[in-house]
């Protein structure tokens, strides 16, 4: 029996889809049978992040409304034979699916796959309720900004109210240099406020833009810092204990100067 993990955030644009794609690809790379489910009906994007946009025939709504069988809608990944995508419908809206249908679908996916990763839409309305309906675990993505942390706090409350206890936090797009000069909240600031368990920190990294341009998740790029962060998150999801990445800024001229004049 597999596990259903929902990736959510409340706020849009913090990296839910990128995170879903990378976790899913990472798990598949480690030998698991994985399905990625895009529940952002009307605004699908997981297909382009994975580079599978040209292969879509059926979608999530076709499956839940009985237009096709689940197997017909699943798209096989280019790189991994054990990774699949169930794309969202682009021409319908969030009300085309209900939480009961999602629960049934998730049961079906769990019988077939080791992991089902659900990419949740932004917001707290029906799309969110659909996405979390069949989930066993939740991962909350948050960037070190006031708006994203606030929305994450609300989402954590809603998850716990719907019996999805102990959601795990991913802090995305951390900029160590800004943290160092006190212009960005650091990991402990955010954990203080949200009071949930951390499952990973992903640094801001240009390679994410490049990998999204190409439709190849950064987790496969051994030279990418964000990719390394996602590889570690993948291992933690599998239950391994992995230390956090070292995100220290290398000591520069300014640090040495400060030391010289006794400021630090």
């Amino acid at each position, binding site marked *: 029996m597999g596990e259903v993990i929902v990736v959510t955030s409340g706020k849009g644009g913090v990296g839910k889809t990128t995170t879903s794609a990378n976790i899913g690809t990472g798990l598949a790379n480690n030998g698991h049978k994985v399905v990625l489910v895009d529940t952002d009906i009307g605004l699908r994007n997981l297909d382009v992040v994975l580079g599978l946009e040209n292969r879509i025939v059926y979608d999530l709504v076709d499956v839940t409304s009985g237009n096709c069988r689940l197997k017909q809608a699943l798209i096989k990944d280019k790189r991994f034979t054990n990774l699949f995508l169930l794309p969202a419908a682009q021409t319908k809206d969030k009300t085309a699916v209900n939480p009961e249908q999602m629960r049934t679908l998730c049961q079906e996916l769990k019988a077939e796959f080791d992991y089902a990763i659900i990419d949740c839409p932004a917001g707290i309305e029906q799309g969110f309720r659909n996405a979390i309906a069949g989930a066993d675990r939740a991962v909350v993505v948050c960037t070190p900004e*006031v708006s994203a942390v*606030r929305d994450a706090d609300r989402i954590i409350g809603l998850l716990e109210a719907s019996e999805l206890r102990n959601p795990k936090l991913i802090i995305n797009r951390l900029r160590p240099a800004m943290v160092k*000069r006190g*212009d960005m*909240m650091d990991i402990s600031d955010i954990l203080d*406020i949200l009071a949930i368990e951390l499952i990973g920190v992903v640094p801001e990294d240009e390679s994410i833009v490049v990998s999204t341009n190409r439709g190849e998740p950064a987790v496969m790029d051994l030279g990418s810092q964000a990719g390394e962060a996602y590889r570690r998150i993948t291992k933690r999801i599998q239950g391994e204990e992995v230390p956090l990445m070292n995100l220290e800024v290398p000591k520069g001229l300014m640090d040495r100067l400060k030391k010289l004049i006794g400021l630090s």
Partner: protein
Amino acid sequence: MLEFISRMLGRESASSKSVAKERLRLVLVHDRASISPAMLNKLREDLVKVISNYMEIDEAALEFNLCQDDREVALVANIPVVKMKRDYSAKGQELNS
């Protein structure tokens, strides 16, 4: 100018992160205070239970509300006391003497 220099040197005084943290703290007090009426009722019942151990109160005239303004959230309760319970006031005397 001094601020600029200390900022250049990475001193905490000019950091915007502490501003962010303080603003978040305040906004979350407000967000989290929007609790459900059911929970507010439960809190009210528990509170009445505890106070009733010490004094007799007029439950019908009891006012109980979460009040919010820009800076803070307060739980305001106005609880009319009908009479104090004798056994507890006697115990209080004992403790004082």
